[in-house]
Protein backbone atom coordinates (compact mmCIF):
# COMPACT_ATOMS: atom_id res chain seq x y z
CA UNK A 1 0.00 0.00 0.00
CA UNK A 2 2.96 2.36 -0.35
CA UNK A 3 1.80 5.69 -1.83
CA UNK A 4 -1.82 4.60 -1.93
CA UNK A 5 -4.91 4.60 0.29
CA UNK A 6 -7.60 2.00 0.93
CA UNK A 7 -10.84 3.16 2.52
CA UNK A 8 -13.72 1.13 3.93
CA UNK A 9 -16.74 2.01 6.04
CA UNK A 10 -18.42 -0.11 8.72
CA UNK A 11 -20.65 0.49 11.76
CA UNK A 12 -20.39 -0.49 15.43
CA UNK A 13 -22.86 0.42 18.23
CA UNK A 14 -24.60 2.57 15.59
CA UNK A 15 -21.43 4.63 15.09
CA UNK A 16 -20.03 4.75 11.54
CA UNK A 17 -16.34 3.91 11.42
CA UNK A 18 -14.05 4.73 8.51
CA UNK A 19 -11.05 2.38 8.34
CA UNK A 20 -8.06 3.73 6.45
CA UNK A 21 -4.97 1.90 5.22
CA UNK A 22 -2.02 3.56 3.53
CA UNK A 23 -0.95 7.15 3.03
CA UNK A 24 -3.14 10.27 3.03
CA UNK A 25 -1.67 12.97 0.84
CA UNK A 26 -2.60 15.32 -1.99
CA UNK A 27 -3.01 12.33 -4.32
CA UNK A 28 -5.09 10.05 -2.11
CA UNK A 29 -7.18 12.47 -0.03
CA UNK A 30 -10.16 12.42 -2.45
CA UNK A 31 -10.78 8.81 -1.37
CA UNK A 32 -11.23 10.00 2.19
CA UNK A 33 -13.46 12.92 1.10
CA UNK A 34 -15.63 10.46 -0.81
CA UNK A 35 -15.95 8.20 2.22
CA UNK A 36 -16.99 11.14 4.39
CA UNK A 37 -19.55 12.22 1.81
CA UNK A 38 -20.89 8.67 1.74
CA UNK A 39 -21.23 8.59 5.54
CA UNK A 40 -23.03 11.95 5.65
CA UNK A 41 -25.41 10.74 2.92
CA UNK A 42 -26.15 7.47 4.66
CA UNK A 43 -26.42 8.96 8.17
CA UNK A 44 -28.06 12.36 7.64
CA UNK A 45 -28.37 13.01 11.40
CA UNK A 46 -25.02 11.49 12.40
CA UNK A 47 -23.77 12.54 15.86
CA UNK A 48 -20.49 10.68 16.00
CA UNK A 49 -18.06 9.39 13.46
CA UNK A 50 -14.87 7.44 14.04
CA UNK A 51 -11.86 7.56 11.74
CA UNK A 52 -9.50 4.65 12.33
CA UNK A 53 -5.86 5.44 11.48
CA UNK A 54 -4.54 2.07 12.62
CA UNK A 55 -2.96 1.29 9.25
CA UNK A 56 -2.15 4.84 8.23
CA UNK A 57 1.55 5.43 7.98
CA UNK A 58 1.52 8.93 6.58
CA UNK A 59 -0.74 11.97 6.78
CA UNK A 60 -0.05 15.61 5.99
CA UNK A 61 -1.94 18.89 5.83
CA UNK A 62 -4.15 17.71 2.96
CA UNK A 63 -5.38 14.79 5.08
CA UNK A 64 -5.90 17.00 8.13
CA UNK A 65 -7.76 19.46 5.91
CA UNK A 66 -10.24 16.81 4.83
CA UNK A 67 -10.78 15.62 8.39
CA UNK A 68 -11.23 19.19 9.63
CA UNK A 69 -13.75 19.76 6.85
CA UNK A 70 -15.63 16.66 7.94
CA UNK A 71 -15.56 17.92 11.52
CA UNK A 72 -17.11 21.21 10.37
CA UNK A 73 -19.87 19.32 8.60
CA UNK A 74 -20.74 17.01 11.48
CA UNK A 75 -20.71 20.02 13.77
CA UNK A 76 -23.29 21.75 11.56
CA UNK A 77 -25.40 18.58 11.20
CA UNK A 78 -25.72 17.72 14.90
CA UNK A 79 -23.07 19.55 16.90
CA UNK A 80 -21.35 16.19 16.51
CA UNK A 81 -17.67 15.36 16.63
CA UNK A 82 -15.17 13.32 14.72
CA UNK A 83 -13.16 10.88 16.80
CA UNK A 84 -9.74 9.77 15.60
CA UNK A 85 -8.40 6.45 16.86
CA UNK A 86 -5.14 4.51 16.65
CA UNK A 87 -2.96 7.43 15.62
CA UNK A 88 0.77 6.66 15.86
CA UNK A 89 2.88 8.99 18.01
CA UNK A 90 4.18 10.67 14.83
CA UNK A 91 0.65 11.30 13.57
CA UNK A 92 -0.44 12.53 17.01
CA UNK A 93 2.39 15.02 16.79
CA UNK A 94 1.04 16.27 13.46
CA UNK A 95 -2.42 16.68 14.96
CA UNK A 96 -0.89 18.59 17.87
CA UNK A 97 1.10 20.89 15.61
CA UNK A 98 -2.04 21.59 13.57
CA UNK A 99 -3.83 23.00 16.60
CA UNK A 100 -7.05 21.38 15.37
CA UNK A 101 -7.58 18.88 18.16
CA UNK A 102 -10.39 19.48 20.68
CA UNK A 103 -11.86 22.40 18.76
CA UNK A 104 -12.59 20.10 15.86
CA UNK A 105 -12.17 16.52 16.97
CA UNK A 106 -11.11 14.06 19.65
CA UNK A 107 -8.19 11.67 19.67
CA UNK A 108 -8.55 8.31 21.41
CA UNK A 109 -6.16 5.40 21.71
CA UNK A 110 -8.40 2.74 20.23
CA UNK A 111 -11.89 1.73 19.20
CA UNK A 112 -13.03 0.37 22.58
CA UNK A 113 -12.01 3.46 24.50
CA UNK A 114 -13.60 5.67 21.86
CA UNK A 115 -16.90 3.79 21.77
CA UNK A 116 -17.05 3.68 25.56
CA UNK A 117 -16.47 7.39 25.69
CA UNK A 118 -19.11 8.16 23.06
CA UNK A 119 -21.60 5.94 24.92
CA UNK A 120 -20.92 7.78 28.22
CA UNK A 121 -21.32 11.12 26.49
CA UNK A 122 -24.79 10.32 25.15
CA UNK A 123 -26.01 9.17 28.57
Amino acid at each position, binding site marked *: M*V*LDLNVSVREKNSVPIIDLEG*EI*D*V*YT*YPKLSDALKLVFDKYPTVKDLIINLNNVR*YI*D*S*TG*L*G*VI*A*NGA*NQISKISNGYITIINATP*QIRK*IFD*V*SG*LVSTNFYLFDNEDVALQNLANKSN
Partner: protein
Amino acid sequence: MGEPIKIELTIPSLSDYVGVARLSASGIANRMKFTHEDIEDIKIAVSEACTNAVQYAYGDIVGEIKLSFFIHDNYLEIKVKDNGRGFDINNQADTNTNDPEKIGLGLGIVFMRSLMDKVDYSSSVDSGTEVIMIKKLPVQRNDV
Protein backbone atom coordinates in the same frame (compact mmCIF):
# COMPACT_ATOMS: atom_id res chain seq x y z
CA MET B 1 33.39 19.11 5.34
CA GLY B 2 33.94 19.87 1.66
CA GLU B 3 31.25 20.16 -0.98
CA PRO B 4 27.88 18.71 -0.08
CA ILE B 5 26.63 15.73 -2.07
CA LYS B 6 23.81 16.75 -4.39
CA ILE B 7 20.77 14.77 -5.53
CA GLU B 8 18.23 16.31 -7.87
CA LEU B 9 14.71 15.25 -8.71
CA THR B 10 12.35 16.89 -11.17
CA ILE B 11 8.68 15.91 -11.15
CA PRO B 12 5.68 17.34 -12.99
CA SER B 13 3.29 19.44 -10.91
CA LEU B 14 0.79 16.60 -10.58
CA SER B 15 -0.45 15.22 -7.29
CA ASP B 16 0.46 11.74 -8.51
CA TYR B 17 4.18 12.34 -8.08
CA VAL B 18 4.36 14.06 -4.70
CA GLY B 19 4.69 10.59 -3.21
CA VAL B 20 7.71 9.87 -5.40
CA ALA B 21 9.38 13.02 -4.03
CA ARG B 22 8.53 11.84 -0.52
CA LEU B 23 10.02 8.39 -1.16
CA SER B 24 13.24 9.90 -2.48
CA ALA B 25 13.46 12.23 0.50
CA SER B 26 12.97 9.34 2.89
CA GLY B 27 15.67 7.29 1.14
CA ILE B 28 18.15 10.14 1.38
CA ALA B 29 17.31 10.89 5.02
CA ASN B 30 17.65 7.18 5.75
CA ARG B 31 21.18 7.12 4.34
CA MET B 32 22.08 10.12 6.47
CA LYS B 33 21.01 8.10 9.54
CA PHE B 34 18.31 10.48 10.64
CA THR B 35 16.04 9.03 13.32
CA HIS B 36 12.75 7.49 12.32
CA GLU B 37 10.91 10.52 13.68
CA ASP B 38 13.13 12.98 11.80
CA ILE B 39 12.62 11.02 8.59
CA GLU B 40 8.85 11.32 9.00
CA ASP B 41 9.22 15.07 9.61
CA ILE B 42 11.31 15.45 6.45
CA LYS B 43 8.79 13.45 4.40
CA ILE B 44 5.96 15.72 5.52
CA ALA B 45 7.90 18.94 4.91
CA VAL B 46 8.91 17.84 1.39
CA SER B 47 5.35 16.78 0.63
CA GLU B 48 3.95 20.09 1.85
CA ALA B 49 6.32 22.06 -0.36
CA CYS B 50 5.48 19.90 -3.40
CA THR B 51 1.76 19.93 -2.61
CA ASN B 52 1.76 23.73 -2.64
CA ALA B 53 3.57 23.78 -5.97
CA VAL B 54 1.02 21.29 -7.34
CA GLN B 55 -1.96 23.22 -5.99
CA TYR B 56 -0.99 26.84 -6.46
CA ALA B 57 1.98 27.37 -8.74
CA TYR B 58 0.77 26.64 -12.24
CA GLY B 59 -3.03 26.94 -12.27
CA ASP B 60 -4.36 24.54 -14.85
CA ILE B 61 -1.17 23.86 -16.75
CA VAL B 62 1.38 21.26 -15.72
CA GLY B 63 4.79 22.69 -14.87
CA GLU B 64 7.89 21.34 -13.25
CA ILE B 65 8.87 21.02 -9.61
CA LYS B 66 12.58 20.73 -9.03
CA LEU B 67 13.89 19.30 -5.77
CA SER B 68 17.55 19.57 -4.82
CA PHE B 69 18.90 17.70 -1.82
CA PHE B 70 22.27 18.79 -0.42
CA ILE B 71 23.81 16.33 1.97
CA HIS B 72 26.07 18.22 4.36
CA ASP B 73 28.05 16.65 7.18
CA ASN B 74 25.64 17.73 9.88
CA TYR B 75 22.46 18.61 8.08
CA LEU B 76 20.25 18.03 5.08
CA GLU B 77 19.31 21.02 2.94
CA ILE B 78 16.32 20.68 0.63
CA LYS B 79 15.34 23.15 -2.07
CA VAL B 80 11.92 22.89 -3.72
CA LYS B 81 11.47 25.19 -6.69
CA ASP B 82 8.68 25.87 -9.14
CA ASN B 83 8.46 28.40 -11.98
CA GLY B 84 4.84 29.19 -11.27
CA ARG B 85 2.99 32.37 -10.48
CA GLY B 86 4.51 32.97 -7.06
CA PHE B 87 2.75 34.71 -4.18
CA ASP B 88 3.24 37.44 -1.62
CA ILE B 89 4.56 35.67 1.46
CA ASN B 90 3.63 38.60 3.67
CA ASN B 91 0.06 38.71 2.49
CA GLN B 92 -1.75 35.44 2.77
CA ALA B 93 -4.83 36.97 4.34
CA ASP B 94 -7.21 34.83 2.34
CA THR B 95 -5.76 31.48 3.34
CA ASN B 96 -8.09 31.28 6.30
CA THR B 97 -11.30 31.96 4.45
CA ASN B 98 -14.32 29.85 5.20
CA ASP B 99 -14.68 28.88 1.56
CA PRO B 100 -15.87 25.26 1.93
CA GLU B 101 -14.32 24.36 -1.42
CA LYS B 102 -10.87 25.38 -0.26
CA ILE B 103 -9.31 22.40 1.43
CA GLY B 104 -6.18 24.19 2.56
CA LEU B 105 -6.21 25.50 6.12
CA GLY B 106 -2.93 27.34 5.87
CA LEU B 107 -1.25 24.38 7.54
CA GLY B 108 1.36 23.59 4.88
CA ILE B 109 3.80 26.33 5.74
CA VAL B 110 3.05 25.91 9.47
CA PHE B 111 4.03 22.23 9.20
CA MET B 112 7.24 22.98 7.32
CA ARG B 113 8.26 25.55 9.93
CA SER B 114 7.39 23.27 12.86
CA LEU B 115 9.03 20.13 11.51
CA MET B 116 12.23 21.52 10.02
CA ASP B 117 15.01 23.49 11.72
CA LYS B 118 14.97 26.31 9.18
CA VAL B 119 12.62 27.28 6.36
CA ASP B 120 13.22 30.12 3.92
CA TYR B 121 10.56 31.06 1.41
CA SER B 122 11.27 33.25 -1.53
CA SER B 123 8.58 33.87 -4.06
CA SER B 124 7.89 36.39 -6.75
CA VAL B 125 5.47 36.73 -9.59
CA ASP B 126 8.30 36.63 -12.10
CA SER B 127 10.36 33.75 -10.87
CA GLY B 128 8.06 31.37 -9.09
CA THR B 129 8.53 30.05 -5.61
CA GLU B 130 11.52 28.52 -3.92
CA VAL B 131 11.58 27.08 -0.44
CA ILE B 132 14.83 26.09 1.23
CA MET B 133 14.54 23.86 4.27
CA ILE B 134 17.18 22.55 6.64
CA LYS B 135 17.03 19.60 9.00
CA LYS B 136 19.99 19.10 11.33
CA LEU B 137 21.34 15.72 12.27
CA PRO B 138 21.33 15.05 16.01
CA VAL B 139 24.61 16.33 17.44
CA GLN B 140 27.10 13.50 17.75
CA ARG B 141 29.13 12.94 20.91
CA ASN B 142 32.52 13.23 19.21
CA ASP B 143 31.53 16.56 17.64
CA VAL B 144 31.08 18.21 21.01
